[in-house]
């Protein structure tokens, strides 16, 4: 067969090649992933046990809520930051970049493990630890003669109903995916000390965002106008009533809200894709 006859028509994405890449990635990393899941489960169990052993009265919906989200943010961002760590090591980078799959397939493989599979397994591990802990906590409460209405229920992490910050639009979850994607991108940009460097950049970015909202937009408005989020600004009479208001059209507000809450990960993935395509191995 001639070398050039076997050129495949689709150089962007084929499901078969992507699945082969996923299988290869799993074969090479399964031990590390399984050990990491065990470590997460162990840490969650240790924190929960500490909570019910020393401050059982405080173990409630809120505890589950905070442990779930703090654990997810820390583990997810730490792991996300390592998704492209191979590209920070010359030996691994050579093999990764010359491997016969497209940048899109490599990106989707990384997102499959780093975002989708991480999230699913984290939720599973959380419940595997949380459900027995809640049962144990309720058993202890029963032994101490607590009223049944004080028993703790297992949190539904997909609604957060009953949590300290009830939030049906899953704002924390979308925030998690955005921040985790920023850490994945950081891992690609900063080969050394990438977690710390990404954190510094994120803080700097948030500072710039605050500066934009608090200082720059207000500079365009007359004196004593107050902004609320991005969407409306108003001024007060001396008696505290609204005098004037500038409100963005509701359609525009909906679009901006949607983009702010849901689009960050996609933009960041797009940047990751282009960064992957332009990545070189120097030195």
């Amino acid at each position, binding site marked *: 067969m001639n*070398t050039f006859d076997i050129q495949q028509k689709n150089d962007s994405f084929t499901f078969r090649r992507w699945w*082969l890449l996923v299988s290869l990635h799993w074969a090479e990393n399964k031990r590390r992933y399984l050990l990491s899941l065990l470590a997460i489960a162990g840490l969650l169990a240790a924190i929960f046990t500490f909570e019910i052993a020393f401050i059982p009265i405080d173990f409630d919906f809120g505890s589950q809520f905070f442990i779930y989200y703090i654990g997810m943010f820390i583990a997810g961002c730490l792991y996300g930051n390592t998704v492209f760590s191979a590209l920070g090591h010359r030996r691994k980078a*050579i093999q990764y970049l010359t491997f016969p799959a497209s940048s899109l397939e490599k990106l989707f493989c990384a997102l499959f493990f780093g975002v989708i599979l991480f999230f699913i397994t984290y939720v599973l591990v959380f419940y595997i630890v949380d459900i027995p802990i809640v049962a144990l906590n309720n058993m202890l409460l029963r032994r101490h003669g607590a009223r049944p209405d004080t028993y703790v229920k297992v949190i539904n992490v997909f609604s957060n109903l009953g949590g300290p910050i009830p939030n049906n639009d899953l704002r924390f979850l979308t925030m998690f995916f955005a921040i985790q994607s920023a850490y994945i991108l950081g891992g690609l940009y900063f080969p050394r000390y990438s977690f710390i460097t990404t954190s510094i950049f994120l803080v700097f970015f948030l500072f710039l965002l605050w500066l934009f909202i608090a200082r720059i937009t207000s500079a365009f408005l007359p004196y004593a106008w107050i902004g609320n989020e991005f969407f409306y600004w108003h001024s007060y009479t001396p008696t505290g009533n609204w005098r004037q208001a500038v409100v963005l059209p509701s359609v525009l507000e909906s679009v901006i809200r949607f983009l702010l809450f849901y689009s960050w990960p996609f933009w960041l993935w797009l940047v990751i894709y282009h960064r992957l395509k332009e990545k070189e191995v120097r030195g």
Partner: protein
Amino acid sequence: MINIKNLHFSYRHKPVLAGLSLGLKPGYIYGLLGKNGAGKSTLLKILSGLLFPQKGELSYGPWRPGQRKPSFLQQLYLLPEEFHVPPIRIGEWAKHQSPFYPRWSQQQFIRTLTEFDIPPDIRLTELSYGQQKKALISFALSTNTGLLLMDEPTNGLDIPSKSQFRKVIAGALDQGSTILISTHQVKDLENLIDRILVLDEGRILFDQPLTTVSQKLRFHQSFDPAELASAIYGEPSLRGNVLVTPNDTGEDGQPDLEMLYKAIIHQPERLNAAFTN
């Protein structure tokens, strides 16, 4: 066919390749030689799409390596000098990697592993550096890619393994493949390469088939001072002077690659003159 025209590449402000032009044909094994920092590894990285040329043209058939299209990468295997191996068994590793290479031969892989005396059921991380390299060489050859690039492939191999290496490479070449071997260990390429390329100061200083070298040059020892004076290159040894001279005998000789390399580096004009006559 790989075509390189007027290729330029610099690391920051340090030029490495400066107007390099070269053609590599299928069916040949090329030996790429050069001093440290001459740009051999940089050239291999550019050929494999790991670095992007800053100026000039580079193509391999319908592909531009820098685009790193899967159809191109399926036709390329780069065996770097330093490599990473995952902690899995050789057989499992090959099972997962091989589907990406359309001309993969499992039989060839097992045969080459056997020739190198590497058991396929052992974890890659449990092997020594030299054994890992032999496993990678076996894999690289079994992919049967159109372009096989090897950077210092004999580094870390013991003496018997080096001759095994020459044997398996020579047996693996087919008419559709190009093999480019970059090395400092000139002796390791003897009786293996078809063509020698010498890179110096970012350009190809010498590019000739070894058959032509055999016709044009003679490598011999002599005590005759007159012969030393007229030689293209010579250096003293325990048994007289080792000389590179124009071949006036009309008989093909056996090229001494190490002496040839020294002659190219130290007397490039005189040497190239022998090929233009």
